[in-house]
């Protein structure tokens, strides 16, 4: 099994006629993802690669019954586009766009919580369940079907790790990019929990970064729910310390955001910590994951 997306995922694409949206929609189609509708205001009634385009999401939902959406619109329009999807009750939405204002994201996430829509992103490559469904921009050649769940803050880093796992013959159930932040629709601990609940996933690889406290949350969750082996890699060991946001940053985040602080917390939770992608397939083999 997979998490979040599978062979029954029916996808609506917002911004399907833009240059990025059109390029990525074609790749998703080639991969076998069921794209059922595109939305571009003003282009309703036309079509894209045989997929009907609508002026508004509600009409697209009534006529094509999507159960997931992916958004490729520019940052200043993401709030409106996301609210429109959430209002129709679509249960899963991937926001690929970078640079969405933080206040917009707070409002989108509050509305999503109230309507029961799960947001992945923003600033994320999205989700891929190799061989089954691709809801995003992951380079497909770097992933293959398998039994390891992979979750990452950084998109590129997940490609990096996917690639060495795949070269070593170790595939993935689902690969989830949660996005570059600083506000996240889905947090690492939540994705880890989903992987723990997925019977096919045998181990989880979690990729994090310096800054914030999301990896610490994940460590706390894993410590209290030691259900499956977890391997983590935290990058930014050599990065300069981030600029502090006045006193408030320190009051809220304390001094836990360093790479070393995160590595320590993960180790204390029983997580195996790698420092290079190549160590990850080795560690997976050691805990019994077979190629």
């Amino acid at each position, binding site marked *: 099994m997979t998490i979040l997306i599978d062979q029954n995922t029916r996808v609506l694409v917002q911004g399907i006629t833009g240059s990025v949206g059109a*390029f*990525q929609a074609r*790749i998703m189609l080639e991969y076998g993802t069921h794209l059922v509708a595109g939305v571009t205001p003003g282009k309703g009634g036309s079509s894209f690669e045989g997929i009907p385009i609508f002026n508004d999401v509600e009409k697209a939902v009534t006529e094509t019954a999507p159960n997931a959406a992916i958004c490729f619109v520019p*940052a*200043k329009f993401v709030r409106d586009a996301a609210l429109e999807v959430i209002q129709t009750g679509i249960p899963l939405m991937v926001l*690929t*766009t*970078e*640079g*969405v*204002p*933080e*206040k917009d*994201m*707070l*409002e989108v*996430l*509050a*509305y999503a919580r*109230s309507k029961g829509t799960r947001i992945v992103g923003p600033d994320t*490559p999205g989700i891929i369940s190799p061989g089954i469904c691709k809801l*995003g*921009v992951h*380079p497909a050649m*770097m992933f293959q079907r398998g039994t390891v769940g992979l979750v990452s*803050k*950084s*998109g*590129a*880093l*997940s*490609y*990096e790790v996917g*690639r060495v796992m795949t070269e070593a013959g170790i595939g993935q159930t689902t690969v989830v990019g949660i996005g*570059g*932040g*600083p*506000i*996240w629709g889905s947090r690492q601990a939540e994705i880890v929990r989903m992987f723990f609940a997925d019977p096919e996933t045998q181990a989880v690889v979690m990729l994090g*970064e*310096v800054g*914030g*406290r999301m990896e610490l*949350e994940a460590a706390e969750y894993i410590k209290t729910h030691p259900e499956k082996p977890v391997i983590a890699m935290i*990058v*930014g060991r*050599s*990065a*300069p310390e981030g600029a502090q*946001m*006045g*006193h*408030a*940053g*320190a*009051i*809220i985040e304390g001094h836990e955001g360093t790479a070393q602080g995160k590595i320590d917390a993960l180790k204390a939770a029983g997580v195996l910590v790698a*420092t*290079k992608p*190549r160590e990850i397939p080795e560690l997976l083999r050691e805990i019994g994951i077979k190629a």
Partner: protein
Amino acid sequence: MRLLEYQAKNLFRQHGIPVPRSVLVSSMADLRGLQYPQVLKAQVLTGGRGKAGAIQVVKDYAEAASTYPQLLGMKVKNESVHAVLAEQKQGILQEYYLSLLIDKVSAAPLFVASAFGGMDIEEVSREAPQKILKLAIDPLLGLQSFEIRKLAFFLGLPEKDLTPFMQALFEIYQAYDATLIEINPLAHTEAGLLALDAKLVLDDKARFRHEDLFTQLELEQKQNDGEYLDSSQKLAKEWEITYVPLTGDLGLVSDGAGTGMFTLDLIKDAGGFAANFCELGGLANADRMNKSLEILAQNPYVKTVMVSLIGGLTRMDDMAEGISTFVRKHPDRFKLVVRMCGTKADEGRAILAEYAIESGEDLVSEVARAVELAREAAL
């Protein structure tokens, strides 16, 4: 963007937050006719001014006239002082702390407050966290009276005194996309509650909604900018590309923050010294790739550049176009090592090969090669 204290206080005034009477001093003449004692405060963006001696109490004009030039001449954490705010000295009965910031964990605007404000608030937060109240506001519902009451009871302040402060903070968050608004201390004086200091950060990502305000604030800060930004940083700011200067000699460009930080780690592990951190972000195209190399070219110590790319949303053919554009213009500026794989990587590497630019698929070996070239260049 961070605001200078006096800029933040101007916004405070517009939203009805009481602040002390003050004058932005532009010459010695401005110091005459003030009601002394006054506090002279260097206007810089960096924190820790009090501990750095950049805030001075002066009891009369004579003292002010000798202190003012000293402040103007000083640097606070490498930042020169270009402006001084003279503010009437207040008799303080108690110092509170009040801020509103975007909290990443609750994904909500969060009020943080304490009846133990002032310089040691971080220590209070560590030693006695129960003396700090954190109150998340529902982003759609907005600030409600019951929330103001809750904070007022916690601080032991009358609700009606606290209301204008909390309402104004929330208005400023909503109206200007503020990510942090901090009043420390919020002082209980004989004249009532006053915001003695003001910190304000606006969300650069929301600039499109506040173009005029950003432009005006930047204009005021301009003389400061030039001072502590090197020419790489100036270009990066202008082109809106993430660029952080470091102290080494190996330039670095990446198409993602995570992969960039990991490449930094690898450079260090291989014994190299990165000259910078530079990432293109999600909208990476040929033009941004070219520009990022132009930014690095401002740094005379950099002779070698590692380009670390793994394409998902980013197309490698676009990246190769950007690199070759730079190389056509500056054929001998850098030795380039390109790690390239992912979306349209074959097409991209074909373009690089035309320009005889070294490229490979494996990050660790490409980093090793770049570190080696940088070492040779340093000899």
